[in-house]
């Protein structure tokens, strides 16, 4: 009797030691892989988006590796086309900006030398109305020589940025490739570490969360895509330059509830203010975006997402703001989905823990 109780305390101690070692290992590996956590996160999202295509093609007994590579080639080709269309414009703009800076450095910086005549006129106008504010000095200080020297000193940072981008472009597709190819192997390995008592529970939990969050996430993507599409069409009809990029920005910002449409419209407003398009187009695009937003909030959102996101509007807006404070624009974008995911995990696990008599 004494012997068994002794061995049971010993096995309990051993179990605690193993748990602590595992926790330490988890912390150490998170610290070690910290710098590429965002890559892994991005890989998961890309793999998640491509997975339905790969699973569909698998029906025709085509190996996963080949279908993933085929999808990569197609995506690469599309990106190539996109950059081919955009890059010449960007280079042209870059040259134009460089020219103005060279000219300006000869004459000294001012708003008019930077080609920002409209902004210059606007400020003159403001100054006549509010003589107490020294707007011109404030704005000119943005373009001061100090600032430009500072920017030049950051060129090594730019190289670092290029390195990061290259690492990103190599690491993400490779990680996504293996996540997609060996999806089932990873699943089996992860679930094989779970004890029999919690095995069915964990599968149940995983499937329920995947179902509820997956539905929400896919709907969100489709909604953004449709908003981007409508915006691009609207911008093309109005004849605004860079319609494709501006429309995509609107679509990408759209999941930021309430604030997204305003953030997404900023680039369009800037293009109209500083571009060749007459200012009256500000009114037209306001009407156009208003119509797009109404279609989104009255038809698309209720139809696609509707009840699948059961979150109070107050919680949603607070999450968006808190996300913005903590992680900037990415926090605003991913705040609501992440909080929704956590909420789903808590709700589903509470119910399942009871069903499996764990609590």
């Amino acid at each position, binding site marked *: 009797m004494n012997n068994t109780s002794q061995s049971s305390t010993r096995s309990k101690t051993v179990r605690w030691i193993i748990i602590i070692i595992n926790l330490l290992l988890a912390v150490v590996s998170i610290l070690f892989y910290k710098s590429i956590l965002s890559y892994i996160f991005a890989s998961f999202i890309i793999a998640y988006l491509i997975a339905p295509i790969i699973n*569909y093609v698998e029906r025709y007994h085509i190996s996963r590796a080949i279908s993933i590579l085929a999808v990569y080639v197609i995506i690469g080709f599309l990106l190539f086309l996109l950059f081919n269309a955009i890059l010449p414009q960007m280079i042209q703009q870059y040259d134009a900006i460089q020219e103005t800076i060279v000219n300006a450095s000869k004459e000294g910086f001012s708003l008019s030398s930077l080609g920002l005549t409209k902004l210059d006129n606007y400020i003159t106008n403001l100054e006549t109305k509010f003589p107490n504010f020294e707007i011109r000095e404030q704005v000119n200080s943005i373009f001061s020589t100090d600032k430009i020297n500072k920017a030049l000193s950051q060129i090594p940072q730019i190289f670092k940025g290029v390195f990061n981008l290259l690492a990103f472009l190599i690491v993400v597709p490779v990680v996504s490739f293996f996540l997609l190819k060996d999806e*089932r192997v990873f699943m*089996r390995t992860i679930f094989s570490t779970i004890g*029999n008592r919690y*095995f*069915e529970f964990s599968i149940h939990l995983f*499937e329920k969360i995947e179902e509820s969050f997956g539905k929400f996430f896919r709907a969100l993507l489709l909604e953004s895509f449709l908003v981007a599409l409508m915006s691009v069409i609207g911008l093309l009809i109005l004849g605004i330059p860079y319609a494709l990029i501006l429309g995509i920005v609107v679509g990408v910002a759209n999941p930021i509830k309430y604030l997204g449409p305003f953030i997404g419209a900023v680039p369009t407003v800037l293009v109209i203010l500083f571009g060749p398009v007459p200012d009256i187009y500000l009114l037209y695009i306001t009407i156009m975006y208003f119509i797009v937003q109404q279609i989104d909030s009255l038809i698309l959102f209720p139809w696609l997402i509707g009840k699948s996101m059961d979150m109070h509007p107050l919680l949603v807006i607070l999450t968006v703001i808190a996300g913005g404070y903590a992680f900037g624009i990415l926090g605003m974008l991913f705040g609501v989905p992440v909080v929704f995911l956590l909420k789903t995990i808590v709700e589903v696990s509470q119910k399942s823990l009871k*069903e499996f008599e764990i609590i």
Partner: protein
Amino acid sequence: MDENVREEKDLLKFLKKVSIFRDLSRSDLKHLRQYLYTRNYAAGEQVFKKGYPNVIFYIVREGELKVYLKQKNEEIELNRIKPYGQFGSFGLFKDVKRTASVVALEDSVLLGISKKDLATFVHNFPQAGVNILYELGCVLSEHIISLNERLENE
């Protein structure tokens, strides 16, 4: 690595002998294998209890298990399941909770597939899916026939 390959071959050979998978091609079995979890149960260990959500469908690879019900502290044994046998199939067709409890009588190895994964497999490989569902229908019919006979004899 070599052992892994042999283990995989053994597993496919075993699956081919399971009645509900006997008409599947080798390529179908390889795809199906991707969804299977191998679980080891010690003698006396509970697999699930009546009333739990119906999540996994099991095939016995090794060992022996008992299907039973508990009524007022009395245990009614319903069935014993040996290698190549399977249990937990009701959940594949109907959204019901577990209708009985299952415990391992000796150290056992089970192959489990989640109800959702099996539905995905049937959807993705309809020809193989028809074979599996047809064989499962046969197994369930046999089960009802034997229950009827038992009622008749009582």
